[in-house]
């Protein structure tokens, strides 16, 4: 390591006034040319992307600001681990704070697509390494020794030849006066002490002691409580309402209408909820009023039509099927699903003439601010958004409709408002995972080789219901992937592992059917296809063949694939969000019904950041995938969701979980996300195991509807 110089190409920002003379560091990782000043005050920073942020107080406490919304993926812990690792911080002195929305300091400040870790990995490492570099420089300067002779460990810089050491806290101020060279060396992975270890959730203490850290827990002086009645059926709009009785009820401040909504504003939540029941509202038809029976029929009609959009085509699928020795065909269908994060939708807004304050849970804070800016007609720099912890998201809080409710009401009432949606409001109000139906066809030659593959997906507001480049694309000579969609007034959106949460089940079940028709073991069948994709790739191969093979082999190994007696095993493997997960489910018969006893998972997410959090993500995703495959369904009658709360929409509970064993494949790849990738394979593994135990294949979710589980 050399002495810090002034030839930094990157900005190094400091603010000495923070936390009683400590060091506040921020790093912008864009390749800014040398003409940029190397030292800036943080308040002068105008650059668009400013990616990480940490502070060292004089007492040695390290504060790491976590920019991305935390919804249980444990990003606050993993981000801090990465920074602390390269900083060589003492983990016991690390504190993590949720950063507010700040487009100048951070980029990609959102939670979705399992993208935060891969996006931020190098940025966060460099942030920690840069701060460490400066602290070493400060110590070397103080002692008059070469920086190369200094080492760091757990919050201290050491100079072993002279047996001197200094804490980061006492070096922080001097370090802030130094600047950075262009390239900061990063650690060798074998030296990691914090990354890859099981580190406990940094919010654990607040959670177990019931601290008010969620959006619903926001209370402000002068704040009023609001509940909003949205149109109860998709395809309808507000016609008229009579709120005279509601307005006379205790605690009610006002009843107002905006867009197609009627809102009650009261001094407490309960009073608002009671008054809402007393409003008489009439609605009228605005668009198509749909039923689930319509959806079933339309999806069937779409599968039979020739108007599908081609997503990928290799070879000549028609000719392949004509020459096939055997053709396998099957259709798989899934219903709409609600997200149901445990914390219902809510947000706080205070719209004043000179600015807007927003506080609450959202997966997309920048989008929320942009929409509010448009709504209230105020520029974004007049709007602050403080993120609270999110009580789950699963994609629901990508959409900020409830933020707009709060902002609009605050604007109308000229008061700070907290809007709360009830469970019923959320479950019946959209956004849903779209309903889809898939038709798969496979052509086998006389030796059982897969020579043709045709998938047509039909959905209701699903857009492209396929993932055209996923396995087995690349491994089949003649392949056609198509999709067709019906536009519906029912609002749909991303639901944890969008599209693949159901497509993976359908595809992995179908591949089992094809393997059986080919007379091959399901695991070997998949490995043979991957070998084909390597030796004779057909078109682009957009997954890593070796990584997929490795998780397949690992799952087969840890589960004792094909070697167990008295238990039916089902296999599944899927690549999504840049990670690879294979699963083996085990089913036994109990009282004539299939019972899922165990799921093995082998995951490859590259470098594991937090071994505890990562295991938890995989286990939780399996429970989630299983629960929704078994029980989840939103159905519609006259445009209205037929399930409004948990007595009608069954979620998985503790007694329904199988034992889960998780292993991670070790390799040298950078980390990829894990919030979603372990969910897609579960349904297929379970359905394939159920087939093994019963000879019955499940073509429709929820599985619990099948006669196998009745009686």
């Amino acid at each position, binding site marked *: 390591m050399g002495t810090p110089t002034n030839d930094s190409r990157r900005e190094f920002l400091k603010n000495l006034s923070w936390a009683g003379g400590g060091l506040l560091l921020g790093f912008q990782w864009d390749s800014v040319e040398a003409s940029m000043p190397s030292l800036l005050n943080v308040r002068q920073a105008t650059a668009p992307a400013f990616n990480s942020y940490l502070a060292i107080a004089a007492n040695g406490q390290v504060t790491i600001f976590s920019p991305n919304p935390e*919804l*249980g*993926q*444990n990003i606050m812990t993993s981000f801090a681990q990465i920074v602390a690792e390269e900083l060589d911080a003492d983990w016991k002195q690390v504190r993590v704070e949720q950063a507010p929305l700040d487009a100048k300091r951070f980029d990609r400040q959102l939670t979705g697509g399992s993208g935060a870790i891969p996006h931020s990995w190098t940025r966060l490492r460099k942030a920690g390494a840069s701060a460490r570099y400066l602290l070493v420089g400060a110590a070397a300067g103080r002692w008059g020794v070469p920086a190369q002779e200094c080492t760091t460990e757990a919050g201290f810089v050491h100079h072993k030849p002279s047996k001197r050491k200094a804490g980061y806290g006492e070096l922080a101020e001097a370090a802030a006066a130094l600047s950075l060279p262009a390239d900061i060396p990063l650690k060798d992975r074998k030296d990691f002490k914090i990354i890859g270890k*099981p580190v*406990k*959730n940094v*919010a*654990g*203490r607040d*959670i*177990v*002691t*019931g*601290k*008010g*850290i*969620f959006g*619903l*827990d926001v*209370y402000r002086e002068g704040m009023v*409580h609001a509940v909003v009645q949205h149109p109860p059926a998709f395809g309808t709009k507000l016609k008229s309402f009579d709120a005279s009785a509601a307005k006379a009820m*205790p605690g009610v401040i006002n009843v107002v209408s905006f867009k197609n909504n009627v809102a009650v504003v009261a001094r*407490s*939540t*309960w*009073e608002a909820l*009671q008054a809402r029941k007393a409003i008489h509202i009439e609605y009228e038809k605005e668009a198509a009023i749909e039923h689930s029976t319509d959806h079933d029929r339309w999806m069937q009609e779409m599968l039979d039509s020739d108007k599908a959009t081609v997503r990928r085509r290799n070879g000549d699928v028609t000719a392949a099927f004509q020459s096939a020795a055997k053709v396998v065909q099957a259709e798989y269908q899934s219903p709409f699903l609600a997200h*149901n*994060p*445990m*914390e*219902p939708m809510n947000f706080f807004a205070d719209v004043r003439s000179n600015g807007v304050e927003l506080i609450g849970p959202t997966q997309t804070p920048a989008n929320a601010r942009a929409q509010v800016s448009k709504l209230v007609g105020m520029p974004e720099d007049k709007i602050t958004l403080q993120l609270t*912890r*999110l*009580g*789950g*998201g*699963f994609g629901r809080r990508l959409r900020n409709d409830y933020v707009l409710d709060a902002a609009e009401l605050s604007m109308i009432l000229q008061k700070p408002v907290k809007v*709360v949606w*009830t*469970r019923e409001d959320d479950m019946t109000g959209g956004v849903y995972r779209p309903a889809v139906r898939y038709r798969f066809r496979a052509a086998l030659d006389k030796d059982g080789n897969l020579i043709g593959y045709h998938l047509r997906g039909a959905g209701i507001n699903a857009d492209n219901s396929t993932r055209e480049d996923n396995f087995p694309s690349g491994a089949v000579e003649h392949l056609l992937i198509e999709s067709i969609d019906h536009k519906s007034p029912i609002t749909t959106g991303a639901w944890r592992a969008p599209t693949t949460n159901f497509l993976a089940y359908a595809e992995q079940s179908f591949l089992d059917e094809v393997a059986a028709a080919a007379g091959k073991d399901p695991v070997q069948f998949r490995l043979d296809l991957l070998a084909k994709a390597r030796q004779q790739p057909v078109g682009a191969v957009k997954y890593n063949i070796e990584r997929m093979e490795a998780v397949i082999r690992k799952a087969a190994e840890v589960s004792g694939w094909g070697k167990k007696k008295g238990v039916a095993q089902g296999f599944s493997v899927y690549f999504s969000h840049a990670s690879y997960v294979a699963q083996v489910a085990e089913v036994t018969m109990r009282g004539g019904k299939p019972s899922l006893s165990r799921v093995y998972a082998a995951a490859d997410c590259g470098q594991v950041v937090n071994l*505890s*959090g990562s295991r*938890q993500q995989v*286990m*939780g995703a*399996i*429970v*989630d995938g299983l629960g929704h495959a078994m029980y989840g369904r939103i159905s519609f009658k006259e445009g209205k969701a037929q399930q409004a*709360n*948990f*007595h009608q929409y069954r*979620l*998985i*509970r*503790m*007694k329904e*979980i199988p034992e*889960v064993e998780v292993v991670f494949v070790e390799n040298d790849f950078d980390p990829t996300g894990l919030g979603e990738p372990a969910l897609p394979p579960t349904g297929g593994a379970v359905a394939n195991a159920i087939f093994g135990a019963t000879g019955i294949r499940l073509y429709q979710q929820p599985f619990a509807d099948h006669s196998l589980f009745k009686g």
Partner: protein
Amino acid sequence: MPVYSIKVNGKLQQADVAADTPLLWVLRDHLRLTGTKYGCGIGQCGACTVHLDGNAVRSCLLPISAVGKGLVTTIEGLSEKGDHPVQLAWEEVDVPQCGYCQAGQIMTAAAFLKRTPNPSQQQVMDAMQGNLCRCGAYHRIREGVMAAAKKVAAKKA
């Protein structure tokens, strides 16, 4: 409206609310004890679980008028220093994901362990069946309750 006096976490508290107001909303909106969560409002999810005279109850279904002289304990009052065996076990096992349902899970577990200090895994699952966790953290919730039971047993020994 009547003024109700209820004893919460050892303190007498007053709330001027309608008789049918659920304890949940009194705790949250009036007493600002926000650790108790709203999840479904119909007793299905358990996020609002508190203790009434030591028993786990759903505060979303309990009208303030029915509390009477009962002693209410919320997550904030479960222990003085956040060191109830269930809370300590929860941290050790690293149970929470999003964390929203956890106060309800902890309150259910604490009341259960008082009645059943040495539970089997099956008894734990029966006791926790009423509490939903949308993140699916059930394995660690179960492990947390078992670990807490060991702590309670160790304390007594």
